[in-house]
């Protein structure tokens, strides 16, 4: 691989790379605002200026400038090298680039930073970006001085509603145009643009339009400062109190890699952020997925119930075991769920085969929704393929076939994972001798359950999810189970013990060990890709 020199370090590059991209790949951060690895180059923030040394034997490209001489108390003629934007300049073999080691570059960065803060409001205490703001980070690293302007800053509109999800603050904006380019290039809906010039310019929405395409929250995500804020996250939490878990989005079958940001002090999830993965979602996520984190707390089943009465988890498990004791194989049916992890489904399938001795296995999931060619999949289940893999070897049938068996009286008892049986007319789905439901969220089945067992969500347990491409991805636990809930595989294991046919699942590792030899290659968990600072 060809190399070039950055601060006297040899850096490999691929032909066509810009300086900043080659450095980014080598793990070196050249300070920047407007450049984003997933967007086109704008080169308008000038923060990434670097000094490119002339070829040996050639004079440097110098600019004549006036510099203030403190001794003479006058401006004097001076020369300084012409700096180049690292985000735009293509690397060539042997190029000698100075970044941190050039005093001209340091001075330029300090000047750019001073310019960007000239009209910046004193908003850090009320700004959601505080704590993850480039202006803050770079001020300390590159400027750390006061600005020289004493005039009143230019005032611009604040808290402008761009759409249902985004609020814009023009005073905080540095007009890097990342949001404009994102809408143009990734969301393919050029709804944002820049108006005015100089220190009066600001981002604006196309007349008669709102920022309302399916990827609006990404504009907030790419914003390096606090100009764009999400209505959903505004004033909800301070980022330095949040911790991140590497999860997989549960919104659809794409399986976008995400960070679930949560507050460890009260086990509350606050937001999703995309986690860079070139094989799945690149740098992005859709609004639906970004807001999907809310399901960690919404419509949750957190208490065990027998009939309509709340009870303890162990009492409910005892009752469920009573219901299932002595049922014969053909009279009982087991429902798997594409909303649950492969481990949960696998434990359930094993429960059907080894404990209940039945082959009546049905597959359930959410009904299809809207999809597009960017990220969103019409299949709104995160683990359709993982569920199918877990049922491998069993004659699994779609959930639509279950009512027929119930009506004919062949199936008298049902054990269901998940509560998504929306295609089935509810009244027809009442098994005569019992319905045991292991559910995370309230749904059609939870209301009819004779025994309801609360199952944990993806935020509360590790789990594997297989996306539409067949890629098995591990989702990391953020915090412990909420309420009385437990991971579904653990509930299944508890039932198996009570029924006297122990499946031997004590830890998640036991389930995974049992899964490994049997399921297809695609079901095996792979380590999540390394975390890259996406911008």
């Amino acid at each position, binding site marked *: 691989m060809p190399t070039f020199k950055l601060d006297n370090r040899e850096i490999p590059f691929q032909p066509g790379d810009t300086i900043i991209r080659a450095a980014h790949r080598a793990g070196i951060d050249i300070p920047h605002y407007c450049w984003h690895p997933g967007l086109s180059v704008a080169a308008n923030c000038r923060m990434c200026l670097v000094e490119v040394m002339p070829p040996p034997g050639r004079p440097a490209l110098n600019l004549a400038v006036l510099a203030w001489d403190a001794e003479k108390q006058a401006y004097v003629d001076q020369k300084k090298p012409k700096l180049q934007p690292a985000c735009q300049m293509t690397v060539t073999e042997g190029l000698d680039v100075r970044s941190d080691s050039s005093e001209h570059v340091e001075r330029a960065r300090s000047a750019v930073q001073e310019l960007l803060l000239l009209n910046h409001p*004193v908003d850090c205490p009320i700004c959601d970006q505080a704590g993850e703001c480039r*202006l*803050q980070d770079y001020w300390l690293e590159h400027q*750390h001085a*006061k*600005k020289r302007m004493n005039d009143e800053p230019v005032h611009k509109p604040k808290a402008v509603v761009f759409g249902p999800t985004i609020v814009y603050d023009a005073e905080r904006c540095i007009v890097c145009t990342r949001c404009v380019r994102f809408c143009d290039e990734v969301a393919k809906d050029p709804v944002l643009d820049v108006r005015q010039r100089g220190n009066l310019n600001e981002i604006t929405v196309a007349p008669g339009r709102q920022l309302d395409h399916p990827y609006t929250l990404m504009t907030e995500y790419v914003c390096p400062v606090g100009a764009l804020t999400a209505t959903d996250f505004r004033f909800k939490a301070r980022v330095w109190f949040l911790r991140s878990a590497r999860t997989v989005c549960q919104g659809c079958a794409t399986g976008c890699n995400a960070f679930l940001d949560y507050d460890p002090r009260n086990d509350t999830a606050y937001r999703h952020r995309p986690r860079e993965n070139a094989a799945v979602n690149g740098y992005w996520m859709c609004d639906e997925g970004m807001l999907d984190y809310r399901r960690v707390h919404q419509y949750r089943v957190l208490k065990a119930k027998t009939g309509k009465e709340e009870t303890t988890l162990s009492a409910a498990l005892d009752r469920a075991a009573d219901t299932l004791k002595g049922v014969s194989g053909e009279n009982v049916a087991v429902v798997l769920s594409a909303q649950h992890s492969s481990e949960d489904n696998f434990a359930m399938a094993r429960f059907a085969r080894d404990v209940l001795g039945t082959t009546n296995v049905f597959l359930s999931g959410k009904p299809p929704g809207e999809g597009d060619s960017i990220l969103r999949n019409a299949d709104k289940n995160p683990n359709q393929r993982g569920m199918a893999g877990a049922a491998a070897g069993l004659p699994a049938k779609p959930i639509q076939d279950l009512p027929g068996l119930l009506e004919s009286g062949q199936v008298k008892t049902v054990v269901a994972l998940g509560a998504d049986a929306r295609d089935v007319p509810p009244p027809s789905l009442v098994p005569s001798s019992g319905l045991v439901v292991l559910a995370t969220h309230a749904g059609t089945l939870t209301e009819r359950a004779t025994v309801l067992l609360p199952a944990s969500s993806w935020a509360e347990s590790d789990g594997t999810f297989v996306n539409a491409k067949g890629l098995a991805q591990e989702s990391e636990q953020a915090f412990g189970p909420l309420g009385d809930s437990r991971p579904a595989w653990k509930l299944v294991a508890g039932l198996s013990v009570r029924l006297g046919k122990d499946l031997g699942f004590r830890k998640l590792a036991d389930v995974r060990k049992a899964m490994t030899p049997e399921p297809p290659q695609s079901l095996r968990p792979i380590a999540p890709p390394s975390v890259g600072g996406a911008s």
Partner: protein
Amino acid sequence: MEPLDQDLDAAEIELPADPMIVNMGPAHPAMHGTVRTVVELTGETITKADVQVGYLHRGFEKMCERGTWTQVYPYVDRCNYISPMLNNVGFSLACEKMLGITVPERCQWYRMALGELARISDHLTCDGAMAMELGAFTPFLWMIKARDLIWDIMEEETGARLTHSFGRVGGMAAPPTDGFKETAKATVDQVLRVIDEVERLLLGNRIFLDRLEGVGLVSAEDAISLGWTGPCLRASGVPYDVRKAHPYLKYGDVEFEVPVGSTGDCFDRFMVRIEEIKQSARIVQQCCERMADSGPVNVDDPRVVLPSKEEVYKTIEGTIRHFKIVMEGLKIPAGEVYSYTEAGNGELGFYLVSDGSGTPYRVRIRPPCFLVTSGLERVITGQMVADVVPCFGSLNMIGGECDR
């Protein structure tokens, strides 16, 4: 040690032939500080002693690992709480050594002046308590009265009499008050008058001298091998003082003597502290004369020192600077450092490890009186049981510093 609550048969009590075991502390009136000393007696002579420390252990070093560097100050205050300012200064110097910064001259004089005042208060307390425990209540009251004058200055300067939390990395929490120099100079004069009176009360007193002279002897070799520093080491005749041997701040530029003892008994330890009060008074006078009336106290480094409130509220740069230092903590470059200063009881060392983040990775303290207290066993073995009181008093064990 044998069990302390042994059940003796009534028959044995008639002619007790076994050595008697006596518990001094952890809550004994003559033990200022919670430390337990179990002594084995033959008659009134101590044949064996077991000093057990740790009653005031609070996990100081571990606590330091969860806040910012600045948030360590309240903890170091509570190490040697008789002279907390010396701990503040010592910790500041350790952090600054790692950062490679030096505070402005005005701050150096200010730190020295406050530090020496703290040393005076430390020695006044130790010698006063020692006299009181031997029955001389008046000198104690007079010395504590003098200490209160010093604490008045501390209160005026820092807002707190005891735990000041006044040091900062790169400077001090506030510049000297307008009247600091005059008050400090006048106060040390008053303290010296008290010392003079105390000397006249005690040094001609046969009982007092008999209880101290030749009691609790420690040779120079023993003191060194025990790791002793400070007044206890100097009382044994070793003229080691960090301020002279490895001058920091402006100690190289001021005139003062290092008093040493000759025999290393309790009396020498008492007298070394009395003499050191006089030397500290000299240093305070010189600091007050040489400290500028105006000029910066804190270094001009926005990565380390907080901006003024005016700046924080009115400019974005000030807000960012404040935010970064408060929320993330000032960043000290990755590495490790050992920095040591002369505190009230001797060499106070800080061994710091930084991983480059805003939170200390490790804060290890070398508490001088932990090592001094470790010698108590040797000092009192072979002495009379009544000698435990002056011996222990002369070592000036401070629970907070010893047990951490």
